[in-house]
């Protein structure tokens, strides 16, 4: 409660967490930058309506030349337009994949951690099966088999990433299911579904939220990795795809890969810092610090 002795003020535990989060300076800065990136992704293409696929200038135009702030790539396409348009794609893939990860992971982990017995055995063996597969390779196989469309890439990333969430959720459920308020709720006649979703899950959320925030970052990296290898929708600009297509010229025109790389770096770093901030804010043991 961070020294708050005023008990008359009814505060949701989440309010404490928010207050705690806003004491963490790197996290606030990161959140601010992230909001800017999201805004750029949403309205940037409207304000800067140059098509990233148009050849607008000579190839390898240096940054700043003739109004192109980040220069042009090997085909004379505007790099800044590419990065701006790519923002939306990267964020979209990151968020959707993270959402999918959380949905699958929480469902599997919650059922396994609540019901135990054969349900847990089966679900956790499936989880382990997905965990031992080399993730990049597995997602490449899916994308290569079913086509490199954006939804398929997102699906592939989600499919290989959920085991971490499932294991965290299961661990939390195993801990919380033994707590007295769960027994008390059971003694008050609560049904299994109610116990899972209304009693245990809300208490298990903090580590899951943190993991989800980190998951957005890793999904963006993942997408960049796949596009770098050419496994991407050729009709859509993404950061990884820009890096991938300019790869042969990395020594002659390094800025063509540096700028999209920086975009990825900054976004993932910010997500990571926000995730850390959430972790500190949601972890009651650290709240006293």
């Amino acid at each position, binding site marked *: 409660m961070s020294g708050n002795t005023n008990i008359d003020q009814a505060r949701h535990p989440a309010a404490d967490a928010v207050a705690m989060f806003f004491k963490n300076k790197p996290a606030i800065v990161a959140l601010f930058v992230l909001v800017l990136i999201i805004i750029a992704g949403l309205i940037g293409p409207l304000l800067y309506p140059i098509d990233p696929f148009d050849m607008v200038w000579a190839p390898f135009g240096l940054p700043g030349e003739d109004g192109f702030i980040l220069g042009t790539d090997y085909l004379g396409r505007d790099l800044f337009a590419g990065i701006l348009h790519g923002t939306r794609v990267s964020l979209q893939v990151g968020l959707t994949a993270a959402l999918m990860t959380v949905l699958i992971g929480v469902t599997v982990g919650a059922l396994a951690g609540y019901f*135990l*017995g054969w349900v847990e055995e089966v679900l956790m063996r499936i989880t382990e099966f997905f965990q031992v597969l080399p993730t990049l390779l597995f997602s490449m196989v899916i994308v290569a088999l079913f086509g490199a469309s954006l939804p398929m890439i997102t699906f592939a990333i989600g499919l290989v990433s959920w085991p971490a969430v499932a294991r965290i959720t299961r661990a939390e459920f195993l801990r919380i299911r033994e707590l007295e308020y769960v027994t*008390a709720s059971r*003694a*008050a*006649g609560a049904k299994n579904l109610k116990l899972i979703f*209304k009693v245990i899950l809300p208490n298990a959320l903090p580590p899951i939220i943190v993991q989800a925030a980190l998951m957005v970052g890793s999904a963006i990296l993942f997408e960049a990795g796949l596009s770098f290898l050419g496994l991407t929708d050729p009709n859509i600009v993404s950061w990884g795809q820009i890096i991938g297509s300019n790869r042969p010229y990395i020594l002659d025109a390094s800025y063509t890969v540096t700028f999209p790389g920086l975009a990825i770096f900054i976004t993932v770093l910010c997500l990571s810092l926000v995730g850390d901030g959430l972790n500190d804010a949601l972890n009651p043991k650290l709240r006293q610090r």
Partner: protein
Amino acid sequence: MTALLRVENLRIELATRLGVAPVIDDVSFELAAGETLSFVGESGCGKSMTALAIMGLLPDKVGRIAAGKILFNGEDMTQASDERLRSLRGNDISMIFQEPMTSLNPVFTIGEQIAEVLRRHKQMDKRDAWKRAAELLDAVRIPDATHRVGHYPHQLSGGQRQRVMIAMALACEPKVLIADEPTTALDVTIQAQIFDLLEDLRKDMGTAIIMITHDMGVVAEMADRMIVMYAGRKIEQGDVHTVLDHPRHPYTKGLIACVPHLVATLDEHRPPLTEVSGIVPGLQEFGKNECLFASRCDRVVERCLRERPTEQRFDKDQVSACWQANTL
């Protein structure tokens, strides 16, 4: 006296590493409407297990009811479906727990938690349930209840939380309330208040109370009748005054002797505190056909080691499971 709850020859087996052990061995008792029945005994003698069995909340896959019946209003709860048990739990039979600090869900307001029970069992709508929650908080004497109803558990003290638990347990005006050491975690002064509260609510609602405790003082103050448990067996039963006045089992005698007596001045002679020497036998001993108290008993005779004592009846429904009960 018509029995509201009747437990017949209950046997609960617990799976341990050394095999199956009967943690409750052939226990029978009755609970009449509106009375307070107390279960006394050392830790691990099966008091809480009995309570959990009545609630149908024995730990999955570890404990099971191996034999016996639990009849509530004539309906055998050991045979009832999960659905039926859920509709009884919190509605006709409620329970309050030992640890008020951890028995409330930290992420919901106490009002939401009480309202939840009302909505589940009484099909109240959200607004009525919330209003009723505030009334219940007022009934368990939480000051400024209409305001407090929106508070979270961490904003309340231990005693207040236990009151909330009681409010929640009594929300549906249950016929039976099981209180598993409800004041062990609280201050002595708060303890007295909680007992007063339970006593008043019992009178108002006519709820029968099963009070589980290891404190003889609590028994003397609260209960009408008492059952002394030892190593999963019922060893003595009777009206509180009769038993405290004239225990018919050496273990009960020992427990009573353990209660320290207050003296008026410090220099007055204080009798040394007594103890019941020895410990409860291990679980692997539990099923044996002998008196399990024999190793700690100063009146042990050869028969105690050969045969499990049968229940012997005395005046005023006093029952003792001791071969030597007559001589005590």
